């Protein structure tokens, strides 16, 4: 029989999930069944079948599950593409962050101003385009297919590039070539790439103490990887609440460094009563001396208890989150475990856990705890004291993973009871993290499916292609020494790499991917080496599941136990539904073929097939809830990254306006300045500003707030006057002159409060408001 290999769209590769997620489920999420290899093969094969048949447009099932799955799938696509946009924007903002200080100080040459301006050009939405000729399209399509499906080339490249070259490579690899964050084939290929580089690192790091410590191109990629959709939603669900409730306690001081406690104690005493005995204590004593001071001990002891409680709370949610931990992160932990065992056959669990901890805690969990803002877990920057507490929590967790040397900070030894109490638990947790299945089998399958697709494609920009081309060319001597290798052949046909095009001319190309060496597979059965019986059996199962999902649950045909013959018959004779009829007829054919092959037996009501169909249906039933739950979680993620996007865009807008302003001023020196028009005043009520978050703290009594309003005026570009008024009075209570430079500088210094005596404004919010309200065509 011919296997149903139509030409499903690329989106549906990702959506194999949509109809039959069995194989997906077992790889993408992290739970693990204990099935034999044989069973698992059968299992994923049937998943494959279902996915393919479902891709035939006339076989689409329209039940609630299918709809829920479609919503989820769309969401995943949106998250992936939004992530990429954010990544690109972030790069621009980072660049501008580093330049804006110079600009503020008027220390930037004109050429550099132009360079800065080029980063501000509206490049957020790159237009679509195409290569001028088909030949280019084909060759690059071939190259990108090769790079995507054979991750070893990129793995090798990662070892060759310098940190300076990494940025463009990172973007192309993480957000384009393997950019579909929820698509199992791309995910698995990316993980294979990581594995290959990790293996190399293990093989080439002589000292144990240096393993996994250096910052390398691949560690950069792993960072980016842990921060994509799945990692972000995990961190949010595990950490966000705990962190947020901690940073609300702005004044909670949990410093346990005796010297600092001692000093602060004296400072406070001096402020209160300079004659008190504490204020007279000697300064400049040693840490040991400070630690022995009974007053210091009195302060520190309860803090130790609180820190332990807080850290225990974090640890608890992290351990409870085991099953929620993204598959890829767990799989990397697993690779670290097996690589460690391979390099050090005698390694005990402690050694293994130390190295797992150097990935899981050091590079994934703890950075998010210490700098939650940059992981989008909180909005503002934590105040000093909560920041310090968070740092302590991270240090305690890291100490659990490693062997802490109190040689660094002797006072940390006071927290030893926490380590002793949790050490075993954490080691067990880290080993359980490694307990996930491999994906090689499904990857092989996915690759076959990919090959059988006739319209695999990739959205990639011209500059990404050219940069990749350039990197490959630069490292040609290492990457493709053998001139007969596929990579060498394509590269020589492509010729020298074109230079980067200006941002304005950059285009997104929709590149069809294909391999000219591997012919598309027409007969998947042969390719996968499975028997005819299995093919029939799986097709039968798939068709029955489809039929039953389509018929109303309360109809008599759907009654249990399932009678397969009757179901097939009912489908084949259904009215006004040609598709259903076709399915029914096919189901009947398959039943009799299977009967002939003695796979199933009519006398026991085809029990073998029936039970599997039943199992499948049950699985799908619970699947709907899983899908709904996942959708809710991902909506949260999507919202977070969209908010982040809005923030980045407003940041860019601010810089943009500022730069225009600076440039128009410097132009003004030579050319007669255009007449500057006063903008405003614009009036805002206290309530309005409070709602928008511009007012972050108000000292105005509640009953007076309704009478307070503000006027915003811009007499000159880049200059603003904010005045505070009380209804009925002619003159304002307060007037504040602001320069954009000052606001930007405050923002740069993470200084969020703008003090207006009666109220405190939030600096970024003020900037956003000014930006929205006073944007002038040229300058402010």
């Amino acid at each position: 029989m011919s296997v149903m290999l139509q030409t499903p769209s690329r989106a549906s590769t990702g959506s194999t999930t949509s109809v039959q997620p069995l194989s997906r489920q077992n790889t993408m999420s992290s739970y693990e069944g204990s099935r034999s290899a044989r069973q698992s093969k059968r299992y994923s094969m049937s998943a494959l079948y279902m996915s393919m048949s479902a891709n035939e447009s006339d076989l689409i099932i329209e039940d609630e599950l299918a709809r829920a799955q479609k919503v989820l799938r769309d969401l995943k696509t949106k998250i992936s593409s939004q992530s990429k946009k954010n990544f690109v924007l972030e790069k621009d903002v980072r660049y501008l962050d580093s330049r804006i200080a110079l600009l503020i100080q008027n220390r930037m040459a004109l050429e550099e101003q132009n360079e800065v301006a080029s980063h501000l050009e509206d490049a957020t939405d790159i237009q679509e385009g195409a290569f001028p000729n088909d030949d280019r399209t084909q060759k690059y399509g071939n190259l990108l297919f090769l790079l995507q499906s054979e991750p070893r080339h990129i793995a090798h490249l990662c070892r060759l590039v310098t940190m300076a070259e990494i940025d463009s490579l990172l973007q192309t690899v993480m957000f384009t070539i393997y950019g579909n964050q929820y698509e199992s084939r791309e995910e698995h290929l990316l993980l294979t790439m990581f594995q290959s580089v990790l293996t190399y690192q293990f093989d080439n790091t002589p000292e144990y103490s240096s393993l996994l410590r250096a910052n390398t191109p691949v560690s950069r990629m792993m960072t980016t990887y842990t921060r994509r959709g799945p990692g972000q939603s995990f961190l949010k669900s595990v950490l966000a609440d705990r962190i947020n409730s901690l940073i609300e306690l702005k004044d909670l001081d949990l410093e346990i460094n005796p010297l600092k406690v001692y000093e602060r104690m004296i400072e406070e005493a001096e402020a209160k009563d300079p004659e008190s005995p504490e204020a007279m204590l000697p300064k400049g004593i040693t840490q040991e001396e400070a630690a022995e001071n009974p007053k210091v001990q009195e302060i520190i002891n309860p803090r130790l208890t609180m820190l332990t409680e807080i850290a225990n709370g974090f640890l608890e949610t992290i351990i409870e989150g085991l099953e929620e931990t993204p598959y890829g992160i767990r799989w990397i932990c697993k690779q670290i475990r097996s690589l460690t065992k391979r390099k050090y056959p005698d390694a005990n669990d402690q050694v293994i856990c130390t190295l797992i901890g150097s990935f899981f805690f050091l590079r994934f969990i703890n950075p998010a705890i210490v700098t939650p803002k940059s992981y989008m877990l909180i909005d503002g920057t934590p105040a000093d004291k909560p920041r310090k507490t968070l740092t302590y929590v991270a240090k305690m967790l890291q100490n659990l993973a490693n062997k802490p040397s109190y040689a660094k900070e002797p006072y940390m030894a006071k927290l030893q009871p926490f380590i002793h109490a949790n050490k075993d638990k954490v080691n067990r947790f880290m080993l359980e993290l490694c307990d996930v299945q491999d994906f090689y089998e499904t990857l092989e399958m996915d690759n076959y499916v990919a090959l059988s697709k006739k319209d695999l494609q990739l959205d990639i920009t011209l500059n990404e292609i050219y940069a990749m081309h350039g990197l490959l060319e630069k490292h040609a001597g290492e990457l493709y020494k053998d001139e007969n290798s596929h990579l060498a052949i394509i590269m020589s046909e492509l010729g020298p790499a074109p230079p980067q095009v200006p941002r304005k001319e950059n285009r997104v190309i929709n590149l069809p991917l294909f391999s000219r060496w591997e012919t598309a597979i027409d007969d998947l059965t042969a390719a996968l080496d499975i028997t005819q019986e299995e093919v029939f059996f799986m097709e039968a199962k798939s068709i029955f599941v489809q039929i039953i999902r389509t018929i109303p649950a309360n109809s008599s045909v759907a009654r249990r136990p399932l009678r397969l013959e009757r179901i097939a018959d009912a489908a084949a004779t259904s009215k006004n539904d040609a598709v259903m009829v076709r399915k029914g007829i096919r189901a009947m054919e398959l039943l009799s073929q299977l009967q002939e092959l003695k796979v199933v037996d009519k006398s026991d009501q085809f029990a073998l097939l029936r039970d599997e169909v039943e199992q499948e249906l049950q699985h799908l039933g619970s699947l709907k809830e899983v899908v709904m739950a996942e959708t809710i979680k991902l909506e949260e993620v999507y919202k977070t990254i969209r908010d982040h996007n809005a923030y980045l865009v407003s940041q860019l807008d601010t810089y943009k306006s500022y730069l225009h302003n600076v440039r128009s001023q410097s132009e003004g020196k030579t050319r007669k300045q255009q007449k500057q028009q006063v903008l405003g005043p614009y009036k805002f009520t206290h309530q309005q500003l409070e709602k928008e978050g511009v007012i972050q703290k108000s000292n105005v009594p509640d009953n007076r707030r309704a009478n307070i309003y503000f006027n915003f005026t811009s007499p000159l570009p880049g200059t603003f006057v904010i005045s505070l008024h009380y209804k009925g009075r002619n003159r304002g209570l307060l007037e504040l002159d602001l320069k954009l430079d000052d606001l930007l500088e405050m923002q740069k210094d993470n200084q969020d409060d703008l003090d207006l005596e009666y109220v405190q404004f939030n600096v970024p919010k003020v900037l956003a408001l000014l930006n929205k309200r006073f944007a002038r065509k040229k300058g402010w």
Partner: protein
Amino acid sequence: MRIYGFQPCREFHIVVLGTGGVGKSCLTAQFVHNEWIESYDPTIEDSYRTQVSVDGRQVMLEILDTAGTEQFVAMRDLYMKAGQGFLLVFSITSQASLDELSTLREEIIRIKDDEKIPIVMVGNKADLLDQRAVDRKEAFAISQQWNAPYYEASARTRTNVDQVFIDLCRQMLRRDDSGYNDDDDYNGGTRNGGGGGGGYGCGQKQEDGSHGSMMKKRRRKRKGDHKCIIM
């Protein structure tokens, strides 16, 4: 009345920077506690305090040992604002670790807005001669471009450990003596807000086009810092 020894003890903030696994903590722990750390114990943020005598003068040092792991990059700004002197550490066994220093240096100079900020460049793990991947001449040439002294050190054998810290102290003392106003450096990490009309253009009209809040700093030339100290 005390005359002797009442000279106020200077206090300086040193920040130790460099990529992961180059031995920042080992250097610092050797310097402060005379201990060699053998265990695998990546740093998140450690602070040390110690008093040293530099050319007969007592100096109190607050040393911040930082995470080399790049994922903690968001903390760097804060460190750099607080620091008055910087140890830039790499490992002579890794070219990449040297390459990363230039980004760090640029960031320091940008954040401190000061090209003469005291810096000492350290090539650690100098005892691992058979694994040397960075040529001494190359590292020295870079240090000269940066106008910073270069030392090759080994935390394991305690070679040049004290020297790198003392050199940094000398640089900071020299600046201090020369009347270089680094008060705002010192307070850089703390908040300036609060208290009504002060600061940041509040309440006072400024001349159009001037950038009032930036204090221009006096710059001084430093001499005699071009040296390479080898073991």
